[in-house]
Structure formats: structure tokens, C-alpha cells
């Protein structure tokens, strides 16, 4: 297992630069979060990995094999995407069987078991499903397909809190029993932050962050106090964001800190992934 390597990939749509010389590796047997604002290039990247789009430049290798028009390499990847590629009149049952034809390790019994847990009637036509159940149908397929690489593009779209929770639990259970490489693109960062081992943040088609979640969060902190206190404290530090509420100020700072030498009245808090994401991807 060598993971998925993206080397210098560029993609344009007309005048729009969707991905600009992107290089990164998705490590084998790890859970990655692919985060970015709307239009940042997340889906474009996932679609290039799975040959639904082709890069203008650059290469993708999967386990060291070229990913472009290579059935063997593509057979190792499953992309759960927003788009539905199933014929209109197909039922969930038929779609499961169809998937089995393409992915020989697809576990039909497990899929039907999950359908029962989510209360999805597999005799229903895919087109008749609500947004939430459409996502559920796709989640079930992705969790049953058993490819070494599973890519989730907005997996929890339209799911209620109970079903999202079920998805996270099933994902961890599956991953824990039989580790695979997962890439999850989502806007619900807070819910998924603790599942992630690696975090990739894309902004305007470029990779802004690519490192382990733990290393990323230990890189900075937020500091709260009166405006004067905070301004003095952060004077020589790298500040990536500030919020003011009346006379109180909170600054998000990148760098390490010596907690034993804090000035009085200053409070320090850990960074969380969602706050950090918002600070890093805000347009000035």
C-alpha cells in the first residue's frame, strides 16, 4: 500500500483555475479530512483521482500505479459523490447487485443489514428517495464496497443528527476492524474532527494545510483578555485571526507558548479544527 499520490495536478474550467499545481499524498490506512469552502476544489480533486475528470497537467498514482484510465487502479477506489450515476428506474437492491458486478468485494449481506439499521427500504427506486435517504443509500454502498480506498464527498448531506451519528459510528467500526484509506470531504468539521488523522485544507485550488490533525492543532492557541492585554501579548506573535466583543479580545495565534509565564488576566485555550479552518479560509 503506497497511498494515493497527487503530483503537480492542475485543472482549469475555462478561465477558472480549479486546482493549481497540487501535490500531496493520502497515506494508506488513514482517515483524511479534505476540507475547503464551497468551490475550493475538493470535488474536482476527488473527481480527478477517480477519472471522472481529467487533469490538464500532473499525475495521480494509486499504490504506485498510474490512476489515469487504468481499470486495475480504479478498481481499488470507490467514490461516493453527490452525483447519482444510477439509471433512473433502478431500485436500491438492483443498484447493490450492480455495484457487486464492478466491485467483487462488495458485501451484499452487510449492505442489507445497514439498510435495515437505517430503515431504508431496498425495494425503493433510487430516484424516489429523499435527499437524506439518497445520502444514506450512498453511504451504505460506500461502507459495503470494501475497496482499499474509499472517498466520501459530502457523505452526510441532508442527514439528520441521529443518522449522522450512525454514519460516524459505522465508519469507525468498519475502519477499526479492517483499516482502509478514507478521504472525507465535509463542511461539518466539528462533528468529524476527532475521527481524522490527517487534515488537508484547500483554498482557491491550492493546498493550504496538509498534516496530521494532532500536529496541526498543537501549532497554535487562542488567547483572551482585555484588548490592551491581548494586543501587548501578541505584539511579536503570528496572529491569524481576531475577534472583539466589547472590551474583550480573542486572538488566534500560531506558535508555541510557555504556559508558566502568562501575564495575569490572559486566558489561553486550545485551537479546535473548525475555528482554525474558519480563520485560515476567511477572505480578507
Amino acid at each position, binding site marked *: 500500500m503506497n497511498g494515493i499520490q497527487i503530483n503537480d495536478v492542475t485543472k482549469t474550467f475555462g478561465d477558472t483555475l480549479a486546482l493549481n499545481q497540487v501535490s500531496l499524498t493520502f497515506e494508506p490506512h488513514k482517515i483524511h479530512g479534505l476540507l475547503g469552502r464551497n468551490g475550493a476544489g475538493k470535488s474536482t480533486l476527488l473527481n480527478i483521482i477517480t477519472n471522472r475528470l481529467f487533469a490538464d497537467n500532473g499525475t495521480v498514482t494509486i499504490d504506485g500505479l498510474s490512476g489515469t484510465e487504468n481499470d486495475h487502479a480504479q478498481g481499488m477506489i470507490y467514490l461516493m459523490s453527490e452525483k447519482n450515476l444510477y439509471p433512473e428506474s433502478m431500485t436500491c437492491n438492483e443498484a447493490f447487485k450492480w455495484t457487486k458486478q464492478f466491485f467483487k468485494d462488495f458485501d451484499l449481506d452487510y449492505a442489507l443489514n445497514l439498510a435495515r439499521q437505517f430503515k431504508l427500504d431496498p425495494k425503493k427506486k433510487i430516484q424516489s428517495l429523499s435527499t437524506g435517504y439518497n445520502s444514506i443509500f450512498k453511504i451504505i454502498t460506500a461502507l459495503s464496497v470494501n475497496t482499499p480506498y474509499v472517498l466520501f464527498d459530502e457523505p452526510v448531506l441532508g442527514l439528520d443528527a441521529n443518522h449522522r451519528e450512525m454514519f460516524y459510528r459505522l465508519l*469507525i467500526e468498519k475502519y477499526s476492524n479492517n483499516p482502509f484509506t478514507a478521504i472525507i470531504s465535509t463542511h461539518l468539521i466539528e462533528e468529524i474532527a476527532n475521527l481524522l488523522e490527517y487534515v488537508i485544507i484547500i483554498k482557491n485550488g491550492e493546498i493550504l494545510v496538509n498534516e496530521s490533525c494532532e500536529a496541526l492543532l498543537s501549532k497554535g492557541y487562542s488567547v483572551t483578555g482585555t484588548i490592551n492585554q491581548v494586543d501587548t501579548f501578541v505584539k511579536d506573535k503570528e496572529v491569524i485571526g481576531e475577534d472583539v466583543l466589547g472590551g474583550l479580545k480573542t486572538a488566534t495565534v500560531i506558535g508555541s507558548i510557555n504556559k508558566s509565564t502568562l501575564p495575569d488576566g490572559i486566558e489561553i485555550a486550545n485551537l479546535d479544527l473548525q475555528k482554525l479552518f474558519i480563520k485560515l479560509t476567511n477572505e480578507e
Partner: protein
Amino acid sequence: MQINFEDERPIFVQIADGIEDAILTGAFEESGQIPSITELSVSYKINPATALKGISILVDDGIIFKKRGVGMFVAPGAVSRLRGKRKELFFDHYIKKLIEEAKKLGITHEEILGMVERGYTE
């Protein structure tokens, strides 16, 4: 056992501390089995690597031991060892903070001692 994402402690430390608490209160008994990495990860919705890191601290400290193919168990003598360790930390974790806060509020030495007495009688 609760995981608090606002907590200063990293999640793997919270997992280790939470299991220690459960052992100290008797929720997990000496020589008894504790939940597996998968069970811990699923119930707290955390990456299994994080849960493993927490458990490893306890294994290294001799609080938990693994039986290959069976599971993880609380070591005999874990309770007294944990009490010893926690007592050493008690001053740093509780007393120092107590005095810091008391100074902020202008509570005197005598007043604190009075409150401690009251705490024991209530």
C-alpha cells in the same frame, strides 16, 4: 467517562484519565476486562489511533495489560498504584489552583481553611 473537546488535555490523555477514574471508582474492577479499542473509538467517535494512544499510556504504566486475542484487563494492584500517582499530583492539580483562585478573589488563608472544614462536615 466524558470526552470534553474544549478541555486543555488532548483527547488521548482524556481517554487514559477517564479509564483511570473508572478504575478508581470501581466501575472497572481489577482483573476485569475493559472495552476494546474499537468499542472506545465508536462510543466516543474518535480515531482508533487516538484511543490506542490513550490505552498505551496505561499499558506502559502497568495499569492495563493485554491478553493476546482476548482483550484488555485491569492489572491487579492498579487501584493502589493509581491512588499513589494521583496523590502526588493532587497538590499541583488542585491545591495550587485553589490558592490561585482564592488570591484572585481576596479569600484569606484562614477563610480557605474554614471552607475546607465546612466541606468535610457538609
